[in-house]
């Protein structure tokens, strides 16, 4: 029954998430032909930009999907909605006035929290699978073929590393409930390091160095290499992500139990 309630509360956000993911996927599939032609033109004329990854982009559709979706925009949209799914819980009910009723039920605060997080995780998985569906249909429409297993592996990696984002979103909401403050604070506290680390690590990789801080670069962990095999999945980074998530969950549980309603 708790799932039923948690699902009702986040139903609208889930639908908005589906729409957003569909828009992003369709948009970049539609752009594919135009971008490839532009890169080809650039490579031809000597003055144009000659980027290392351009030939890959032209010939490898799989790489294109990975670069524009799983390494950039779909990942960011998915993370944003994973955070939004994690918002809510008893704290939100406090200013709704129904928290006394909820706490009156023989349900421990932890069970409330874990139900909310589980529903958020399931919705995030649903969102990412829906994106795969849109890619499949879109790719067929633009007559491009891609390896479904790679895309599914990327989805799995994104979600596996993404649990950190869900836990972080929930903790942030518990600490700064309501009045949209939690939304902009989560975007700042999570967005800034996410972007900064991504550019910094790209620069480092360009120089060929891989400092230890690379493990905190969630953008890269969630994206992983564009061709995932058993050895190339960033296991260490995943481990770091999971331990951090565990810490976050413990903090949320401890804070949640201590709260007065």
């Amino acid at each position: 029954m708790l799932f039923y309630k948690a699902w009702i509360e986040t139903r609208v956000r889930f639908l908005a998430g589906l729409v957003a993911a569909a828009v992003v996927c369709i948009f970049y599939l539609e752009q594919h032909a135009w971008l490839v032609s532009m890169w080809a033109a650039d490579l031809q004329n000597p003055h144009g930009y000659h980027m290392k990854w351009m030939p890959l982009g032209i010939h490898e559709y799989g790489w294109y999907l990975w670069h524009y979706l799983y390494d950039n925009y779909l990942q960011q949209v998915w993370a944003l909605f994973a955070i939004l799914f994690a918002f809510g819980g008893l704290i939100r009910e406090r200013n709704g006035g129904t928290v006394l009723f909820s706490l009156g039920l023989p349900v421990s605060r932890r069970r409330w929290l874990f139900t909310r997080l589980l529903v958020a995780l399931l919705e995030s998985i649903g969102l990412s699978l829906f994106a795969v569906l849109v890619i499949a249909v879109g790719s067929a429409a633009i007559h491009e073929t891609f390896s479904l297993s790679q895309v599914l592996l990327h989805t799995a990696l994104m979600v596996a590393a993404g649990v950190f984002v869900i836990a972080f979103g929930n903790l942030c909401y518990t600490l700064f409930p309501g009045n949209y403050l939690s939304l902009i604070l989560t975007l700042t506290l999570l967005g800034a390091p996410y972007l900064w680390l991504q550019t910094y690590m790209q620069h480092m990789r360009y120089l060929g160095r891989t400092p230890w801080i690379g493990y905190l670069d969630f953008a890269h962990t969630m994206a992983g290499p564009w061709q995932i095999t058993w050895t190339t999945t960033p296991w260490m980074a995943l481990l770091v992500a999971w331990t951090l998530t565990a810490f976050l969950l413990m903090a949320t549980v401890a804070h949640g139990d201590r709260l007065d309603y």
Partner: protein
Amino acid sequence: MEIVLTTNSSHPHRFFATGSISICWKAWRESRGRFFSALVLLASFVVYAVITSPGFLSRYNTRFPDKTLLYSVYVWTGLFHYALQGLWVLGAFIVALGGLAREKTTGVALFTLGLPVARRNLFLIRAWVAWAEAVAFGLASAVLIPVLSAFVGESYPFFQALAFGASMTAAGLVVVAFGLFLSEIFEGEFTSPVAGLCTLTAIFLGYRAHTLRGWNVFDVMSATTSIDPKTQLLTGGFHWFGLTICFLISVVLLGATHAVIQARDF
């Protein structure tokens, strides 16, 4: 315990003045947290952009020697036309949220509506405070650029930064009005932010990738039409036409929101 009834309504207009000041304070009090976090977000981004600019510029120029990148071009394309503008849009939108629809769910709308303040004033004051906050953190971060550039050994004309900031926040009224509009239609705590963020990011990114190449509000905000293509600094001529269009759209949006509030029953 005797209760003494005192009714001195000698200065009715004074009540109006203090009334709207307290509504102002209430609007500020509600969005204060979001204002400061938006300010910090924008300021820290400007600091990051300016401090890493020398390294970036030198790297860029070594790789593409024939296309040297001017500092002013870097500032405009990187900040005013892309990242800073995007963050400002995000901040302005979130600051504009809240309002009577939101209060309805927390059950406090009846109290606010019980006050002797017309719904029109409640909304207009909140709109004005939201826009003032957006202008404040927009200008603050814009002005920060020339100040920090001195430290990094670059120079950026103070007046230019101020003009770009003013143009961004002035045309940005559309974004604030859009935020106000969404937050008054949807009661849910997350429906308006989610809907707003999705549409804004979709337009913002869509505009980048040539589908919406034509005129749109972001060009007006970054004053694309009145800058010198080479140095990307303002060339005096001010893009009045674009600004008036933006104000018109904002007025339409504010009018629509006002109508929604008047019609809504609490």
